[in-house]
């Protein structure tokens, strides 16, 4: 892929110094460094996590793309791979992990459940897609996605990183400090997303009792 080279395409660098000299932009250098070492959070939720492990083993070897260093702590991770069904009970833990990750950070929704609730959407303990809480960068379809699909999703993420510019990214923008901070949801009679408290209160007032339990 042309895109992977550090040098800009339009400069004619003599062949014998091509590995020594590069003419490029700061954005490109910055993104080139980041895209090649996206460290995922070692974090598995359900079935998809097994395919995530499989993607790292010898046959698929995600390390080829520079993203094999799984970090168990969110403080060292760049990307959260939401690999499986997000349940209401688990959600506060996921949000906490996400908030602890330093910027720049990315979220990849792996599989049908993380993207939309998938086959379990109707379940009473299931959050219908992590995008109700976190800003998702890449969605990977499948139930579970094969390791190839996961790697394709990672490459998509790299392409997204390539297109970012230091001038516009949110983590250098003074006015957008903590723009990605997600307030912790509360486990009450049901999952309470505190950003929507007023909405809940209004709807609960007009709620007709539909259950006896």
């Amino acid at each position, binding site marked *: 892929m042309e895109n992977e080279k550090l040098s800009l395409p339009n400069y004619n660098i003599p062949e014998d110094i091509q590995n020594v000299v590069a003419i490029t932009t700061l954005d490109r250098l910055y993104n080139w460094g980041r895209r090649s070492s996206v460290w995922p959070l070692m974090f598995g939720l359900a079935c998809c996590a097994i395919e995530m492990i499989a993607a790292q*083993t010898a046959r698929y070897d995600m390390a080829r793309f520079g993203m094999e260093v799984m970090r168990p702590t969110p403080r060292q991770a760049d990307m959260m791979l939401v690999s499986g*069904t997000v349940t209401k009970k688990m959600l506060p833990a996921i949000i906490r992990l996400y908030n602890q990750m330093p910027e720049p950070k990315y979220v990849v929704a792996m599989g049908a459940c993380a993207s939309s609730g998938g*086959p379990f959407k*109707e379940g009473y303990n299931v959050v*219908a897609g992590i995008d109700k809480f976190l800003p998702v960068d890449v969605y990977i379809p499948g139930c579970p996605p094969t390791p190839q699909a996961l790697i394709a999703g990672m490459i998509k993420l790299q392409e997204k990183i390539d297109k970012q510019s230091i001038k516009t990214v949110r983590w250098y923008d003074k006015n957008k400090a903590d723009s990605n901070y997600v307030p912790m949801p509360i486990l009450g009679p049901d999952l309470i997303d505190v950003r929507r408290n007023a909405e809940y209160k209004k709807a609960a007032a*007009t*709620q007709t009792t539909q259950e006896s339990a």
Partner: protein
Amino acid sequence: MAAPASTQTVDLIARFPGMVTADTRPGFTGFIVNKENLLEVAVAIRDEFGYDLLTAVTGVDYLAENKMEVVYHAFKTTGGAGLIFRVQVERVDPIEVPSLTGIWPGADFQEREAWDLLGIKFTGHPDLRRILMWEGYEGHPLRKDWKEAFYEEEVKPFKSRWPDGQHIYSEFKNPFRDNLNFPKDFDPEKYEPENEKDLYASLENHTLKGEGGLKTDQIVVNMGPHHPSTHGVLRVAVTLEGETIMGLKPVMGYLHRNHDKIGERNTYLQTIPYTDRLDYFNSMSNNFGYVTTVEKLMNIPVAERAEYIRVIMAELSRIQNHLIFIGMLMNDLGTMYTPSLYVFEERELILDIFEAVSGARMMCNYYRFGGVVRDIPDDILQRIKDLVVERIPAKTDEMERFLNDNEILVGRLKGVHLINAEDAIKYSITGPVLRAAGVPYDLRRADPYSIYDRFDFDVAVRYNGDMMDNYLIRFDEIRQSLRIIEQALKQIPQGPINSQKPAYQVRVPAGEAYGRIESPKGELAFYVVSNGKPNPYRYHVRPASFVNLTAIEHICRGAKIQDFVALLAMLDIVMGELDR
């Protein structure tokens, strides 16, 4: 093999006149025990009649009859058919049934689950808290009059999908525009979260005091739900004194995906792909358990060729499960990644076969009522043969050669006590952990299902009950599975792969069935109640992981925190099955 005895040969009625009646509903067997006499009868069932293994405790909500029923399935560890006894109580809150935890401690988690999901209070239970949902959650979801937020209709197929095909986005129908259900006049700003006070209170109550030999403060540590060695999203709250575990409470439900509730809405056929996602390492075994149960209810034969295909697939599944177990155990013991890379290499080869026959690597959705969905081509049979005759035996030997005498491994495993036979039975543990404690209880021999009685294999058993035995028994089981597959490949006949015509709806007569198979992790059972309609009235999964984990508190108290990770790994839990 002794013929499985009918449950009615146990004359419980003559032994307890007036306290026990026979269940006479069509399709039901077993006994109805008076609530007041339950403990007395249960002790007799265990001690006099010899049904020492209580495998399943679950409830059924009979809304129309205004009854709540608790069903118990007890078995003998010497094999044979089980004894079903049940208690029926008026469906008026509070619904109270005496707890059997004093007689079978293995009932602990299952009773908590029945309380959580059905609202049955077990009096005398030492720690009756919600287990899958959180404390403070509104309602008991498996009650028939409780409706989830995205409720559409009682049963599938929903009219909005078929025949009309006007699907409505579920969020639009709910007043909260999400999968939410708040009580009337709920004010989220005034809500005081419960903050797990009861968890810590219960941990405090179940903590050993001043017996650790050290005069230090006890500290509470939470491991999980995000922790690399809890095998998924399990959390344990541990009280430590120095490095000794004084008290431990597992917290689960972080992957509670409501299989039971969804299964009741689904048609019988629609549930098969959901069973794939229970124990996601072994979708083939899960399918096997479910179709066996429903076939029992339907009373249909299975095509001869399909029986062999089923056994081959289930045993391949067992092999790759045990391989992963070994790899993950090594990860937990600190040899990060290298053994896992070896086992995953072999696992990929088995998954290739699954993909070739079913179209999917992990979620195979392969078994059908009466057979399997697709035939195996001859070249795949040849590939399986190459794998089980040459590659896997050689690789298993290689792994044993690399690992078994490793000084660190032996130091970590040998002599570290997991559980002894008596406790294992008491805590309803099944599978390799029970067999490593010296009880040769394998359902493929003890209560044969499918065609396992045609094969020549040994039940792997080891006697020390320490971690080394638990580790080595996995290799033994791999070798026995290879033997079974080899024989099956020789015997497999040509012929149809399903005894039934493919159908979207199956006719299931009214009644109940408890079908159990020896899944790689232990006894996987399904309890299905049918009322003759196209959807099951009650669908309950009795997973091996969940019940085996009941003993974790007993196992770990007094152990060192460093060993906890390995002790947990030995139980071979998988969260999809544990939380369902």
